[in-house]
């Protein structure tokens, strides 16, 4: 097997040539991966590299399109929906898997309640919960409702849950994203203790320092492909960052065009805070493309939703062309020429699955078939939407075409400022390039664009944990530099 090193120990879990596609989009390409007993194995890669998908496949929550999984040397098909826990394989989800209405104790034992003569043995379950929480050194009340807990505490409950299930292999998808340094230390101490007892961990993280500190081996994925597996000791933060991003992309992007420094400021944000985003200020000029980079959970989407008025803000001023924009008034922002394009194409952008045909999505307000047809023709021409006919259902279209359609839909309101959240998520390289060129063309028309993505703009602001940590311009912008800021290896702005 490639890249597993020459370790004499026998792997507990081996994944061979795992591939996975969602519809037309392939996200994993024949990836090999293995977990040794009593090791902490880091799984690294950029947003969208396929880490979460691989982890879900290895814990039974997704089925691979191709490839096989061996547990203790025997090929297995992992049962779905968390039933793999019975085999000792536990996944701690990135998005928490806790029911808000239950208490901590109830959550820990959900689905495997202990009963005596058919009656819940609440005393026993509570005592076990207290024990698991004590082991973690966590002062959470076992009787507290999940809904009353802070995010970090919820994470601790998830970890306590895994511990109490006596797992052999624990997959942790960015467990420290919401933890403080102290909480992280407690978690790591616990991981080390369990590792010494033979439990294996797969640790998905973006934080290079934590990976260096905790893990024994590192596997790097890039664009769904296996890149390297190596002992952590022979790597350093720089070389991992290089492995994660090192690809030739220059031809993908349109030539950068320098915005005029004297252009008017069309959008200014001063000292904006939401629950998670803290004190962010920036300005956007006419015809400028401003990028917001950072890792998942760094607060970029929250920030932009607050700017657009889709999410309440705690403090700060947003000005559109010099006039204040009141919080939580997206319709007003819209009316004044600000458009927001969500990354959640399925959830918020387009009505897939509802039987909406693509031409219905282009309409705006009035139902005039001929104007709809014209709008549709315009959209197809302008954004190169390729469909057999206009009555195709949006849900059947490829991700790239959906993205173009969303762009076309937004352009129908003729916005001056467009905020685009991860326009290239889940689409192929060719379409990616097209979309970058559309964005560049829009900027040349004098529109201003904010792109949540680190990939193309002239100016890139980097966020980390709700704060803006750096602003890069021109030659400074390279993926390696951005990654160093995003992972916390470098910091430029005082907060």
């Amino acid at each position: 097997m490639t890249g597993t090193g020459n370790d004499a120990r026998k792997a507990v879990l081996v994944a061979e040539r795992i591939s996975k596609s969602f519809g037309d989009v392939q996200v994993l390409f024949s990836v090999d991966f293995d977990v040794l007993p009593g090791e902490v194995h880091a799984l690294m890669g950029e947003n969208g590299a396929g880490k979460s998908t691989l982890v879900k496949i290895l814990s039974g929550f997704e089925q691979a399109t191709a490839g096989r999984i061996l547990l203790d040397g025997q090929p297995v098909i992992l049962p779905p929906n968390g039933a793999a826990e019975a085999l000792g394989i536990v996944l701690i989800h990135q998005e928490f898997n806790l029911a808000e209405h239950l208490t901590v104790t109830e959550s820990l034992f959900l689905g495997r309640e202990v009963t005596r003569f058919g009656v819940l043995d609440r005393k026993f379950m509570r005592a076990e919960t207290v024990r698991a929480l004590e082991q973690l050194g966590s002062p959470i009340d076992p009787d507290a409702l999940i809904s009353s807990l802070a995010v970090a505490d919820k994470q601790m409950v998830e970890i306590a849950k895994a511990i109490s299930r006596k797992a052999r292999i624990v997959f942790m998808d960015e467990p420290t994203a919401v933890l403080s340094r102290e909480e992280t230390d407690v978690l790591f101490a616990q991981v080390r203790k369990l590792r010494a007892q033979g439990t294996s961990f797969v640790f998905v993280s973006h934080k290079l320092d934590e990976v260096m500190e905790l893990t024994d081996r590192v596997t790097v994925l890039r664009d769904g492909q296996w890149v390297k597996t190596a002992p952590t000791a022979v790597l350093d933060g720089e070389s991992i960052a290089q492995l994660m991003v090192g690809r030739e992309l220059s031809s993908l992007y349109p030539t950068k065009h320098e915005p005029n420094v004297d252009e008017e400021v069309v959008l200014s944000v001063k000292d904006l805070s939401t629950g998670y985003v803290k004190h962010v200020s920036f300005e956007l000029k006419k015809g400028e493309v401003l990028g917001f980079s950072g890792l998942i959970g760094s607060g970029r989407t929250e920030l932009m939703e607050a700017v657009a008025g889709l999410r309440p803000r705690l403090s700060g001023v947003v000005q559109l062309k010099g006039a204040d924009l009141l919080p939580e008034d997206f319709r007003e922002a819209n009316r004044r020429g600000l458009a927001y394009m969500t990354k959640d194409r399925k959830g918020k952008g387009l009505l897939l699955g509802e039987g909406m045909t693509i031409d219905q999505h282009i309409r705006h307000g009035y139902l005039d078939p001929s104007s709809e047809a014209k709008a549709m023709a315009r959209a197809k021409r302008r954004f190169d939407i390729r469909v057999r006919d206009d009555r195709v259902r949006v849900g059947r279209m490829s991700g790239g075409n959906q993205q173009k359609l969303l762009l076309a839909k937004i352009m129908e309101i003729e916005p001056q400022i467009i905020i685009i959240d991860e326009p290239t998520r889940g689409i192929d390289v060719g379409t990616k390039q097209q979309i970058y060129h559309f964005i560049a063309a829009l900027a040349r028309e004098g529109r201003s664009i904010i792109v949540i993505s680190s990939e193309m703009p002239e100016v890139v602001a980097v966020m980390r944990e709700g704060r803006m940590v750096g602003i890069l311009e021109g030659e400074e912008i390279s993926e390696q530099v951005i990654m160093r800021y995003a992972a916390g290896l470098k910091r430029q702005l005082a907060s």
Partner: protein
Amino acid sequence: MNTTAETESTPEIRGRRTWRDVDLRAVAPFAALLLLLIVGAMVNPNFIGLNNLANVATRSAFIAIIAVGATFVISSGDLDLSVGSMVAFVASLMILFMNSGVIADPALMLAAAVVLTVIIGSLCGLANGLITTVGKIEPFIATLGTMGIYRGLTTWLSQGGAITLRSPEQQELYRPVYFGSFLGMPLPILIILIVTAIAAFILYRTRYGRHVVAVGSSRDVARYSGIAVDRVRTIAFIIQGLCVAIAVLLYVPRLGSTSATTGILWELQAITAVVVGGTALKGGAGRVWGTICGAFILELVGNIMLLSNFISEYLIGAIQGTIIIIAMLVQRSLARKA
């Protein structure tokens, strides 16, 4: 689900409950009940008498028992609109069976009828559950459909009129179930208490009850925790059917007859009782005793209207409709504070 937690831990415990965190939604229905009793006493001195209150409680029995079942369905995140029609349908079949005379001995006949009623009620609930889960139809639509079906079948069985228990013997034998009392307590009240106690035990003390709440709180979390979500939901509908059957067992001896209009708008009253009782309509928190309190409140409001002559009693439906809307508003404002 607030048990007296015997926490002996250190004071800096996070997420710990203090008196300020007492769930207002759990207390609100009982506070409202107290308020109503005071208002009632001021309106009419007869109101607060034990006789009147026992009467009110007895009359609330049908809705209370149905609403206990609705608590399960609603806690698991579903809704059953068919309960009113189901009462009429099950009661019709029960009386028709007793009139058929297939068993000569009146006591045996009654026993058989009781068993049959329980089975029919459960089957009606099962049908609702399967249509919702296996058919993957929104419970609102699924039970709107069965509401029409059960009502239509009743109208057809009764040919638009009434179905009456014919044998005076049977009537004599059966009457005490509604009108009788045990140790001075009217039987319907006793049955409410027993049904509620069992329901509370199931909801709070068994694995199934825990799963009901989990399923109502988040289907995905429940599924990922290895809970058979569809089975939990279907069983909740069966429990609802069972409760309807028990309500029918109390209803039939009262008048000894049913008609096509039996149980009209009872679904509104049952859901109102559940919501007034503090159960979240979007699932995830069931309060059985609150539900009983809610049912009692509904009946009390009617009683006060009757005794006071302020408001026409013909407006009772409008008042109940208003109550459910107010209850939802109160629930939401209390939830925000929490």
